[in-house]
């Protein structure tokens, strides 16, 4: 039987050719996918398969000088929902109701947010308390992804809020100590890379790489929370009593430059903070560091210190006050147009005589006076550990618009703008033996492994000699204890101080409002605390002596016993 021989017809070779071509196309595509574009597609696959997250390090705590916690981080959860999983209505309903129970959110709104977000993972709740979030995780809500986070809490409430500052949602410090020491507090964030499933959840035992986060260091402040609370309470009462727009109370250890308390108003309060209100952004700065004012007669302390240190006058040098000094057709008068006749330099401080301050400044001369202002740190930031410090404004002899009137007015604290922290630092140098110390808010940092790094006192210079400092201290003591009643005299302690009542400058002149201030220290012989009280635009128009002086006196009598400094008024009287 003969087989019919297959002939090479088109019905055979056409399909064969077509299949061959198809095979070639497939082959070419495979070559393209697996050889030519291998890296690109591999990378795409990796990005699809692998998820990564930043693991925030635990932020260090902020403590007061005695170890009391002022700010600390606690663990929380940020909850995301995988939108794909919630496409099924039943799943979304069950999931949203479970989340709503813990977070208090509206379940319907939650479902709507997830549905309309257009994101793969939708953030539904931030900073959920740890325990509550743990319960939600254990409940196995479909599509729920939880990322650990931390939340900043302030156990002391609003105490020292203006100093501590705030952190942002990404745990970065935005203001205050939180911002200045952010690198230390924040630690080093870690990173986790994992394989995930189609819902975006990590696959158990999938490829998993983790860089462990390194916790941040704790920061120990020089602030004493008890003194801070006293300062804030006292300032609030004083502002109400004198109908003042704002103010500051600063307590410093003049021997070390450590700030023991720093209260400012207006200022940050955690209890009422609402960052969605643009007006509140103005509260985030610490005005004792960022805002300038003309110090008025407090500056006479610096003028006297300079003149005495230069050997041009002594505490007992006499001059005759006629109540007026004329400089280039400009008349400079005393406060309240007083005329005091023959006065010593101590008397100049006691009566706060403007013409006496001009007398000392003119003896120094413009350039020498300027050298002393520079040496006391005016016109330059003190370097305190807070952001936004102002340098101050003063017209120098080399400035084109300078005139001898500037020398005269600067001598009694007008035509020169300073920050409260600058003024306190300068007066501190005048009474602590002549050393200008950098003011500081931090005494130590403690790493997570317990390694402590102490911040030491930093000497910026010596504007005056120890002998001159002794003289100034005695002169300031005579201001507070002149032999007649002085509102700034503490009941229990010897002290020294000087008041200032300055007009508020506006463009082309001065406003009707005033700033009343008082800077003093106690005890007189061995100062352990320096206190600056400043009241802005007090509507009762009391002077610095009358308004701020009693606040200083009361603070000394309240604070020094707390610091275990024995009262010395009786001892001084016995001597």
């Amino acid at each position, binding site marked *: 039987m003969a087989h019919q021989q297959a002939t090479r017809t088109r019905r055979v070779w056409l399909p064969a050719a077509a299949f061959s071509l198809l095979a070639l196309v497939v082959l070419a595509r495979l070559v393209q996918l697996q050889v030519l574009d291998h890296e690109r597609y591999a990378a795409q696959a990796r990005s699809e398969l692998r998820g990564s997250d930043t693991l925030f390090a*635990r932020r260090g*705590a902020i403590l007061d000088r005695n170890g*009391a*916690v002022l700010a*600390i*981080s*606690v*663990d929380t959860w940020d909850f995301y929902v995988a939108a794909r999983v919630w496409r099924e209505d039943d799943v979304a309903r069950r999931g949203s109701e479970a989340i709503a129970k813990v977070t208090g959110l509206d379940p319907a709104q939650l479902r709507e947010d997830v549905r309309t977000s257009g994101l793969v993972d939708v953030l539904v709740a931030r900073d959920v308390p*740890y*325990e509550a979030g*743990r319960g939600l995780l254990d409940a196995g809500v479909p599509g729920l992804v939880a990322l*650990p986070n*931390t939340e900043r*809490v302030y*156990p*002391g*409430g609003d*105490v020292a809020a203006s100093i501590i500052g705030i952190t942002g949602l990404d745990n970065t410090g935005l203001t205050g100590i939180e911002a200045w020491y952010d690198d230390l507090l924040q630690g080093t964030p870690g990173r986790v890379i994992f394989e995930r499933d189609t819902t975006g959840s990590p696959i*158990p*035992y999938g490829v998993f790489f983790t860089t462990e986060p390194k916790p941040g260091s704790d920061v120990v402040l020089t602030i004493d*929370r*008890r003194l801070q*609370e006293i300062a804030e309470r006292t300032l609030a009462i004083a502002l109400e009593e004198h109908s003042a727009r704002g103010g500051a109370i600063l307590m410093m250890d003049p021997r070390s430059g450590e700030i023991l308390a720093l209260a400012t108003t207006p200022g940050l309060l955690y209890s009422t903070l609402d960052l969605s209100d643009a007006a509140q952004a103005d509260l985030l700065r610490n005005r004792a560091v960022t805002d300038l004012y003309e110090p008025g007669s407090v500056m006479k302390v610096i003028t006297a210190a300079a003149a005495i240190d230069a050997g041009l006058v002594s505490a007992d040098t006499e001059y005759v006050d006629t109540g007026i000094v004329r400089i280039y057709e400009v008349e400079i008068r005393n406060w309240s147009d007083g005329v005091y006749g023959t006065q010593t330099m101590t008397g100049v401080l006691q009566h706060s005589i403007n013409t006496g301050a001009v007398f000392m400044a003119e003896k120094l001369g413009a350039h020498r006076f300027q050298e002393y202002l520079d040496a006391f740190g005016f016109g330059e930031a003190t370097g305190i550990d807070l952001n936004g410090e102002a340098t101050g404004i003063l017209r120098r002899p080399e400035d084109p618009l300078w005139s001898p009137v500037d020398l005269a007015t600067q001598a009694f604290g007008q035509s020169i703008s300073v920050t409260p922290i600058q003024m306190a630092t300068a007066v501190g140098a005048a009474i602590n033996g002549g050393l200008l110390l950098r003011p500081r808010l931090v005494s130590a940092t403690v790493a997570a492994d317990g390694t402590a790094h102490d911040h030491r006192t930093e000497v910026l210079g010596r504007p005056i000699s120890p002998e001159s400092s002794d003289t100034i201290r005695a002169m300031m003591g005579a201001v507070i204890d002149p032999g007649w009643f002085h509102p700034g005299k503490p009941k*229990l302690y010897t002290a020294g101080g000087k008041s200032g009542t300055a007009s508020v400058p506006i463009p082309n002149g001065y406003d009707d409002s005033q700033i009343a201030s008082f800077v003093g220290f106690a005890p007189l012989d061995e100062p352990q605390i320096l206190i600056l009280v400043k009241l802005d635009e007090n509507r009762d128009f009391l002077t610095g002596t009358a308004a701020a002086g009693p606040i200083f006196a009361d603070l000394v009598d309240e604070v020094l*016993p707390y610091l275990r400094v*024995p*009262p010395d008024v*009786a*001892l001084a009287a*016995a001597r």
Partner: protein
Amino acid sequence: MTALDRPAPRALEGELSLPHFGISKWVLAGVLLASASAMLPVFQNSSVTSRGLDLQSLEAEKDALRAEMSLLEADVARLTSLERIARRAREIGLFPSGTAFYVTVTEAGPAPAKIPAEYLLRPSEPSSEPAPWWRSLLEAIPLLN
């Protein structure tokens, strides 16, 4: 008699042997070795997975404890805050002190209380034994004195 000539079965002759399927012992050993080799990674993987689970569980426990610790720290801080202490003090009837009176004493303070003699350390008495003979030699060397 023919029947008597047949050879006795092996069992009856006292010889025991496994049924022979035509597989050599070496092949059997190879199969067993291969099976063991194949099962080893399975057991290893199983063990690693089990340990991994334990590890993750411990990690989660560690995280939970750490979180609990931070919550407790915050609680302690809250409980020792000045505001809370002041509130609690008011609740139990305490109130801020009034003016403190300080008395300056110019008289010298009382003499410190004397400690009974039996509690004091007795001064060491000089030894009655004569110094050794070589001490005088040492004392004679100028640089040693």
